[in-house]
């Protein structure tokens, strides 16, 4: 589903590469944690999948397509197959929960009937039934992140990317969010999640890829956050 072949990414004006000769293969339906110290290149890894940047060298494949060769006008089509969630939720403050989720479908031209059935269904799935008319600042952090996940998942993407989704949440709330991501993973969606949260990684026992200064230093099935002998 996602394949990195000797990918190097150097930001302009930066002496050190953010990623260096990274080769990774993620199968369809996998759940992968990306761990590593701050600045180790986790966000860069995720952004390459979205084609927010092109790699400096090497190749990135998503769903069998080499996306660094993708024409600019085809990038939106790629992104429609990938849901994305961030630490800071990125909700539109002047839109209600329902409107925020519907927005993701409207702007890609989904017919009204489909929006009207998919949005409530997804809100129910993330546990926000009855809160559709609230504004983001009338919700707790955990609930806001559920809205963001609903928005990312409402189009039923093949891949869900989460960059420190629990970074702003307390441990209890984080567990709820992880249960939700696990449920989404069980629908067959490939999930990639960058995190600093050792407790969560240790609890879930999923595949762990560890980055250090842009290199993959560990790739372990059913891994934990820290090193393991």
């Amino acid at each position, binding site marked *: 589903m996602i394949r990195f072949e000797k990918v190097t990414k150097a930001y302009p004006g930066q002496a050190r590469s953010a990623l260096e000769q990274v080769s990774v293969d993620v199968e369809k339906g996998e759940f992968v944690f990306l761990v590593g110290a701050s600045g180790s290149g986790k966000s860069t890894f995720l952004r390459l999948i979205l084609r927010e940047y092109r790699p400096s060298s090497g190749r990135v494949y998503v769903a069998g397509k080499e996306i660094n060769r993708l024409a600019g*006008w085809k990038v*939106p089509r790629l992104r429609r*197959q990938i849901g994305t969630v961030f630490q800071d939720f990125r909700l*539109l403050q002047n839109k209600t929960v329902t409107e925020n989720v519907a*927005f993701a479908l409207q*702007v890609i031209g989904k017919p009204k009937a489909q*929006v009207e059935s998919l949005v409530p269904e997804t809100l129910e799935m993330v546990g926000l039934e009855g809160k559709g008319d609230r504004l983001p600042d009338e919700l707790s952090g955990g609930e806001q992140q559920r809205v963001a996940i609903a928005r990312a998942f409402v189009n039923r993407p093949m891949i869900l990317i989460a960059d420190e989704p629990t970074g702003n949440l307390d441990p209890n709330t984080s567990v709820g969010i992880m249960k939700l991501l696990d449920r989404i993973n069980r629908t067959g969606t490939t999930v990639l999640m960058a995190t600093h949260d050792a407790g969560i990684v240790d609890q879930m026992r999923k595949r762990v890829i560890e980055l250090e200064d842009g290199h993959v230093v560990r790739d372990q099935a059913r891994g934990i956050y820290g090193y393991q002998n």
Partner: protein
Amino acid sequence: MQLRYVLSELRQGLRRNLSMHLAVILTLFVSLTLVGLGLLLNSQAQRAEEHWGSQLQITVFLCNETATSPNCTGEVTPAQKDAIINVVQENPEVADFHTESKKEAFEKTKELFSEEYFARLPTSPSSMKESVWIELENAERYQGIRSAVEGLDGVSNVRDQRAVLKPIYAAIDALKFGAIGIAAFLIFAALLLVANTIRLAAFARRREIGIMRLVGASSLYISLPFLLEALVTALVGVVLAGGALAAFMYFGVAEGMQGQINFMPWIGLPEYLAALGAVALLGPLLTIFPTLVLTRKYLKV
């Protein structure tokens, strides 16, 4: 759904940045009006030239029945005419010449003036004068030919275009270049205002645009509200300029100058429509072109 989104975005965008949009509209309005005026003045100069010929011309009018010049003893005779043409032909200051019959003069007058004005003129082909139109080799050297024909029998009068036309053409030219020069500065200001408007709008909508890009909205979809805003402001500017130009045509030309200066044919509806067409093309171009360039830059779409 698509259309509704686009229209509501458009309405919001216009309202959010109302003062900037008004600034763009007003600058466009004034600059387009000036461009239109420049075009109208240009047409006016052309009309005048069609009627009078260029500054390089002098016109020798031959006697008719009613001519009062001392050289005239009634209608010019064929012999007198031959003699006059001979003098013209031989003169080194003459580059070219042609003759105009009474009938041609009549048709030309009829064509150049508006029908209602023409109806008031006491003209018929017989009341016109035959004439010889002389194209000079050099606008500064005209005295020789002038004095050569002036005294000839059968010559009613010699019209020196330079004396009559120079101040009129100079005035029209000055107004024309003045209008277009000021318009050029204002167009530059309009472009800067359009650029600023887009930058502010892109900044105000940066979160929304970020999410649209993230969820895979197409570039066209993202930039459409900006393009429509540009189009709407341009259209309002064009309509205002069209109104101002129409007012100029009505109060300035039809009701004003035409009544007072009736020895010159004036521009009318066809010239107005041509100027309006040019302004209607230029207006949208001035807003849409920078919008296309800047949406690419600011929205990274």
